[in-house]
């Protein structure tokens, strides 16, 4: 099986500061990986580099065997769900937030049905009534699960998760673990949560932008 993501001696410099140095690793489809390390060690930068948000100084990032280039970045972004600590819902209501990506050309023809919407919410222990709530009036934990729900609705197979369990209670956390137990989903995550680390199959340690 060929890797879904491969970093080949990748170095990244932002504002003349090296944030990743000679980073190499690969991830196969279905694998659950976690990046560990102190704050500022470059964990989140790995995720952002894969999404084309940080300029690569040297080395190559491969996604599904294709090098990351301006021409391929749209494909990477369309196939990947990135969920941060404080995800932006970028819409007035939760329903609008969930349907937001389906306004874009890339997903316009795949608008989910109401029943699919409800099914995904229930999978993440979210009540159906949340659909009509204002995005600004929901908690951090709910925001994280709605961002996850948006990824699931888009049928994404690769999830980049940045401290995604930080605002979740035990029950919600279990629902998220259950979602990612799906062998079809690949996860590259950043966390300080030992419970999450325990459930991952691969652990990468980062120190000052280098894999140890």
């Amino acid at each position, binding site marked *: 099986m060929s890797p879904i993501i491969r970093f080949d001696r990748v170095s990244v410099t932002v504002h003349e500061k090296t944030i990743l140095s000679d980073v190499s690793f690969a991830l196969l489809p279905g694998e659950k990986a976690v990046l560990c390390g102190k704050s500022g060690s470059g964990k989140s930068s790995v995720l952002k580099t894969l999404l*084309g*948000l940080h300029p690569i100084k040297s080395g190559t990032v491969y996604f599904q065997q294709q090098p990351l280039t301006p021409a391929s*970045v*749209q494909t990477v972004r369309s196939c990947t769900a990135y969920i*941060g600590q404080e995800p932006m819902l970028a819409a007035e209501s939760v329903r609008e937030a969930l349907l937001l990506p389906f*306004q*874009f*050309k*890339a997903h316009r023809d795949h608008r989910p049905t109401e029943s699919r919407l409800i099914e995904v919410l229930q999978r993440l222990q979210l009540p159906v009534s949340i659909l009509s709530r204002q995005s600004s009036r929901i908690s951090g934990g709910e925001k994280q699960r709605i961002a996850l729900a948006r990824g699931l609705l888009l049928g994404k197979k690769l999830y980049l998760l940045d401290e995604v369990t930080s605002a979740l209670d035990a029950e919600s956390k279990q629902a998220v673990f259950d979602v990612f137990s799906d062998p079809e989903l690949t996860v590259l995550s950043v966390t300080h949560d030992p419970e999450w680390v325990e459930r991952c199959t691969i652990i990468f340690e980062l120190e000052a932008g280098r894999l140890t």
Partner: protein
Amino acid sequence: METLDIQLPQMALLYGLCLLPWLLLWLIGLRLSRDIGISILRMTIQLMLVGIYLKMLFDLNNPWLNGLWILVMLIVADLSILRRAGLKARYFALATFAAIAASILFSTTYLVILVIQPAHFYDARYIVPLAGMILGNCLQGNVIALERFYSALRKNENEYATFLMLGATRWEAVRPYFRDAVKAAINPTIAGMATMGLVSLPGMMTGQILGGSEPWLAVKYQIAIMICIFTSTTVACIINLKLSLNIGFDAFDVLRDEVVEKP
């Protein structure tokens, strides 16, 4: 009907009027004497030079000289827009110049050739002041459009990145900020048209009436200039923002830090 001239002693009397606001500002503790003095001096010198130049332009009425004057106005406006919008001229000067030149030349020639129809389309008496008025308003609109667009993107960096992550193209991801910027840029002109004549008498109309024109003629010219200002501001802002999308972002759709002036 001749316009009454203002003689030198009366001009001096006019400058004397500035003593009243200066005194009031001084009394409330605002020490702006230097700024006020420089502004009045600059206004006087600049307008005197323009007066000399316009007199020369009108006397010669040479199409190339008129064109050169408009070109100079466009270059000055271009650099002024970028400076006030906080963007580096090194990157955006050509795009902004193309946008304002295209819209100003289009609306001015439309107005002069199709509407006013003077004996010579290049007649300095029409083309120079009309192009200047349209450009002055277009400048304000473009400053607002560029400043709003790039500051909104910087302020909403995470939201913009979220749109990209959800599969939006660059154009789809910037569209909300693009619309807001264009709206902010043309709103003053739309509001100005809606209240024109009610809140204040427009400058050009007042000038024409003082210059001896019939009020009806002045009204028609005012309507013509407002429609041209609205058209050219809208066209220039949209072209300018659209062209800037190829300059302000890198190949991965990330906003380039180096194109913005450091505050």
